[in-house]
């Protein structure tokens, strides 16, 4: 289980569910950046890294398909630019069509500026239609899984800063996680982004000690990390026990980056 190597014959699939509600305009864990800006930046950086990982020789190989769903007052594709309205995009097309290039300064060297591709913009308005977003993801991932039965199952990463405003998302999340390939069930991981600096709860194995029913609900919606991901997490210095779920509560920027790294560690073919 969860050991099918990802290659062109058996591509993988990663979908990001991004909270774009009005509260995402608040500061992220006491920093000067908003949660929306930090999240968009982190997702753009991860997509850039995934593209690089899929580069072999003179081409980007379609080892992965990516999707981004934003949820605020509606749930819809959050790809900006030419890829907007696309649900799943082969990574070679993701590489070819960023919405734009944005000039950034290098960390630690503000005089050095570099152009970076942007696929998703920070958005913060409206409600939190998380249930609709999960439902939308399921509508195309069930077809993807049927068409790729030999593949590593899809991975869905859900980023939110608060409760869904369109009902309890747990039943639809359980349906999502029942989407299967021969290599296992769909993996759903959840991260809660905090406005205030606080103590995060990372990759718990049980709901004991979670501070409130909202956190417990996100825990229920989260899949266990695969052995590959557990190894990656330990190599990163994280303390994860067997049975650890892909769930972080009260995350700050560094936890967000770690979560993205751990949650997308898959057996990608080396050549």
């Amino acid at each position, binding site marked *: 289980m969860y050991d099918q*190597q990802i*290659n062109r*014959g058996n591509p993988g699939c990663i979908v990001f569910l991004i909270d774009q509600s009005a509260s995402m305009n608040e500061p992220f864990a006491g920093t000067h950046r908003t949660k929306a800006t930090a999240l968009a930046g982190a997702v753009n950086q991860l997509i*850039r890294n995934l*593209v*690089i*990982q899929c*580069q*072999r*020789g*003179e*081409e*980007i190989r379609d080892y992965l398909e990516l999707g981004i769903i934003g949820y605020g007052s509606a749930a819809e594709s959050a790809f900006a630019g030419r890829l907007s309205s696309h649900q799943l995009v082969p990574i070679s097309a993701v*590489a*070819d069509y*960023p919405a734009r*290039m944005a000039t950034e300064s290098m960390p630690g060297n503000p005089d050095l500026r*570099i*152009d*970076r*591709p942007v696929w998703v913009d920070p958005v913060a308005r409206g409600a939190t239609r998380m249930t609709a977003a999960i439902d939308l993801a399921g509508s195309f991932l069930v077809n993807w899984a049927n068409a790729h039965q030999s593949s590593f199952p899809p991975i869905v990463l859900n980023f939110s800063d608060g409760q869904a405003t369109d009902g309890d998302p747990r039943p639809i999340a359980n349906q999502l996680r029942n989407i299967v390939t021969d290599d296992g069930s769909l993996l759903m991981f959840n991260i809660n982004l905090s406005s205030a600096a606080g103590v995060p709860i990372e990759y718990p194995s049980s709901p004991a000690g979670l501070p409130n029913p909202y956190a417990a609900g996100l825990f229920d919606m989260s899949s266990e990390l695969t052995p590959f991901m557990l190894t990656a997490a330990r190599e990163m210095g994280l303390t994860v026990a067997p049975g650890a779920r892909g769930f972080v509560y009260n995350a700050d920027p560094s936890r967000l980056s770690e979560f993205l790294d751990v949650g997308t560690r898959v057996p990608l*073919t*080396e*050549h």
Partner: protein
Amino acid sequence: MMDMVAYWAPKQGTAFSDWEDGAAYNRCSGWFAVADGASTGINSREWAYTLTGSFISNRPERALADPATGFELWVEKTREGFDPGSRDFLPSRTPLWVQAEGTKRGAHATLLAGRIAAGTLRAIAVGDCCLFLVRAAGRVESFPLASPQDFDAHPQLVSSLPVQGRRPASPPRPFERDLEAGDVVYVASDALAQWLTGQRGNPAVWHMLSRIGNAGFRDLCADLWDGKHMKNDDITLLRAKFGSIEGRH
């Protein structure tokens, strides 16, 4: 002229053009090199090709005689001539931002290279490509790794990035032995090397390898992959035989 030959096989499920190791040798001069491009960098295949070609054409004696300083001098010269966009390689079909990112991140490869001359074998190693010295009497010595458990997912790599601005890598490990008539030297990239380190006490394997040809090598790789005895990866094997030696000086 030395009896020296190289075999290679692309990873199962890929085309021959997808093979990303590098191998080069010169039967007259005795110089040889095998490199394995790392998946962590862009243009790693081109870097593996460049490293092995540069070692054979430049014949860096000082890299073998003084690995601590001579190796980096040779690598620096190789870096200056590294052009993944050159006409020697297939034109890139990646977006410009990917190419720029690749230039910034650099390319990386493991390397095992050396020379057989005047009855002496000298080699240097960075990473997990391995050399196997099979004595005529049957003893097998492996370098730099000795057992399958010694291999891991993070070997040391030769980088295409200049040393300036980053922590210098450790110098390569040296190896030197006098040779005897009937000795055979093999250099293998990591997947095959890992299997071979477990076969050091199996004379039948080394007897088979001493006689293997192209078709037999491909069959061997297929059998090892099908039996899950070897990681599914690009495979390179270089073999050098010694019928006689010129002298020990």
